């Protein structure tokens, strides 16, 4: 009984053994952002879509630049634009799908309930998803833009009319092509958050991209000219990545046209945030 006298008050109350260290900060954006990066990199579809985007963009850059070679003597010949326009279209198709999937797939698999049980602060989860998507698509777009540009210039090397990185307008074209991709990814993401259904949201994105300009074409020219600058029309996309902007009076300048898409991204993100934070999961 000697050991009892060592502890006159009896054995100390058992301290529960903690298997997990206590939290040092409130669960919030830093951890959730890390989690969203893990989610993106741990599914094969992310890698496949990004690889498709990269490879297809570079191939189209080479084909488009090579096809435009015969115009190399003309003043409007813009090999920077030729090599970057393709990635905008693919950005809308492939990265649009990536943006939708980044959120709608959580509803499709019902993973959203599990995610919200780990991080019930909806604004935090939504922001983490959007930031992770923007970061990943930005990096991929930068690599794709630079590679597409140099591949495109290599294709027109024989004409000696290719652009260099220091040619006027080239850096702007590279910058805007790079920024366009995450902007569009966020448009698709916002729609995905509102619609919550992968197939439905992808259809909506493609409807906006392809149907809207077509429908507009059916209206009188005065209308379509006035509205064209606000839509992802062919001329608009070419304007964004033009090293030599056409100065068409119907369009904004390259920065202005990108700003239009950035504006759509903000609107879609806001609508998505409302749906994500207010509606039942």
């Amino acid at each position, binding site marked *: 009984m000697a050991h009892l006298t060592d502890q006159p008050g009896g054995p100390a109350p058992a301290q529960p053994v903690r*298997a997990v*260290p206590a*939290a040092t900060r409130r669960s919030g954006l830093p951890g959730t952002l890390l989690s969203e990066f893990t*989610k993106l990199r741990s599914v094969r579809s992310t890698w496949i879509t990004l690889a498709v985007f990269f490879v297809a963009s570079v191939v189209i850059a080479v084909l488009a630049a090579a096809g435009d070679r015969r115009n190399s003597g003309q003043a409007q010949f813009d090999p920077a634009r030729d090599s970057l326009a393709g990635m905008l279209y693919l950005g809308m198709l492939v990265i649009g799908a990536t943006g939708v999937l980044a959120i709608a797939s959580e509803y499709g698999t019902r993973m959203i309930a599990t995610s919200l*049980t780990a991080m019930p602060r909806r604004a935090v989860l939504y922001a983490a998803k959007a930031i992770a998507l923007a970061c990943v698509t930005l990096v991929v777009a930068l690599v794709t833009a630079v590679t597409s540009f140099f591949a495109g210039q290599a294709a027109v090397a024989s004409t000696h009319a290719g652009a260099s990185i220091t040619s006027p307008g080239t850096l702007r074209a590279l910058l805007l092509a790079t920024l366009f991709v995450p902007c569009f990814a966020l448009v698709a993401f916002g729609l995905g958050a509102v619609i919550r259904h992968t197939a439905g949201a992808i259809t909506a994105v493609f409807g906006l991209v392809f149907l809207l300009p077509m429908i507009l074409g059916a209206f009188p020219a005065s209308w379509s000219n006035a509205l064209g600058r606000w839509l992802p029309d062919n001329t608009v996309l070419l304007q964004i990545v033009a090293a030599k902007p056409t100065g068409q009076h119907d369009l904004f300048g390259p920065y202005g046209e990108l700003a239009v898409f950035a504006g759509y991204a903000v609107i879609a993100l806001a609508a998505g945030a409302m749906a994500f934070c207010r509606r*039942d999961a």
Partner: protein
Amino acid sequence: MSIEARGLTKRYGDKTAVDDLTFTVRPGMVTGFLGVNGAGKSTTMRLILGLDSPTKGTVTVNGKLFSRLYSPMRELGALLDAKAVHGGRSAYSHLLCLAQTNDIPRNRVDEVLSVVGLSGVARKRSRGFSLGMSQRLGIAAALLGDPEILMFDEPVNGLDPEGIVWIRNLMRGLAADGRTVLVSSHLMSEMEHTADHLIVIGKGKLIADCTMAEFIARSGQQAVRASTPQPGALARAVLAAGGQATITGDVTVGGSPELEVRGLPLERIGDVAFAAGVPLHLLAPARASLEEAFMELTADSVEYQAGMAISGQRAHATVTEA
């Protein structure tokens, strides 16, 4: 360390899924959340987690809304839907991305994978998992934060008998640690060996909130099965001692007729038989009656039922008044 619902109500359109529920889930025991399919169990759990917001009333975890918790996974772990995972993600990555939201270290992911016995398939994509393996993955996710409160929605669905025993022991162990454990089921037989306390709901309404012992006591659990080669002699002895005995018409494996005895405790029946010199081949509580009591209790709240007359209202009254 508790879950408290106060007047919790949820309507979807004109359909009331949860109707004015008030209850408290306490630590140190397994609380069974019982109700037939469609009674509102899953909806209640979604309300607890803030996945859906209540139409009226409140539900708090440790006195706070779930979304206000400092580190939610360290306070409450939940398994709602075992298939609510992205099938293209490995078990390890699935748990890692959940752990990261709450700053839970990586090594804890390996730990819980081994607790649930999934270490061997940690790098496999969960799409190929059986329902039983998915349940284990969901339980691993619930355990990640080593939380004081655990909530499982129908956790034994799809588990093999070995898995059922495993999860039963797990839940009992968690409760013995002093944790709060809420587990839902639509089968009384599952709860019988697991739960200490019962919350029974039907059509979204609270039907009973009592200990398992009370529930058994109220359920005519006093009925005892006895079997003897001399059923007549036993029936007379039981009658003389103040009980009632009915010959059920069943026979035991050994061929002795069975009786159902009421009004006497099991030990007393043994003594009475011994005193009367009647050999007993079986003396056991009539377990089936517990499931029957539950069925009877919830009968008037079953939404889709086969056409059979049930005296549910009476059972309802006797249980709620006590």
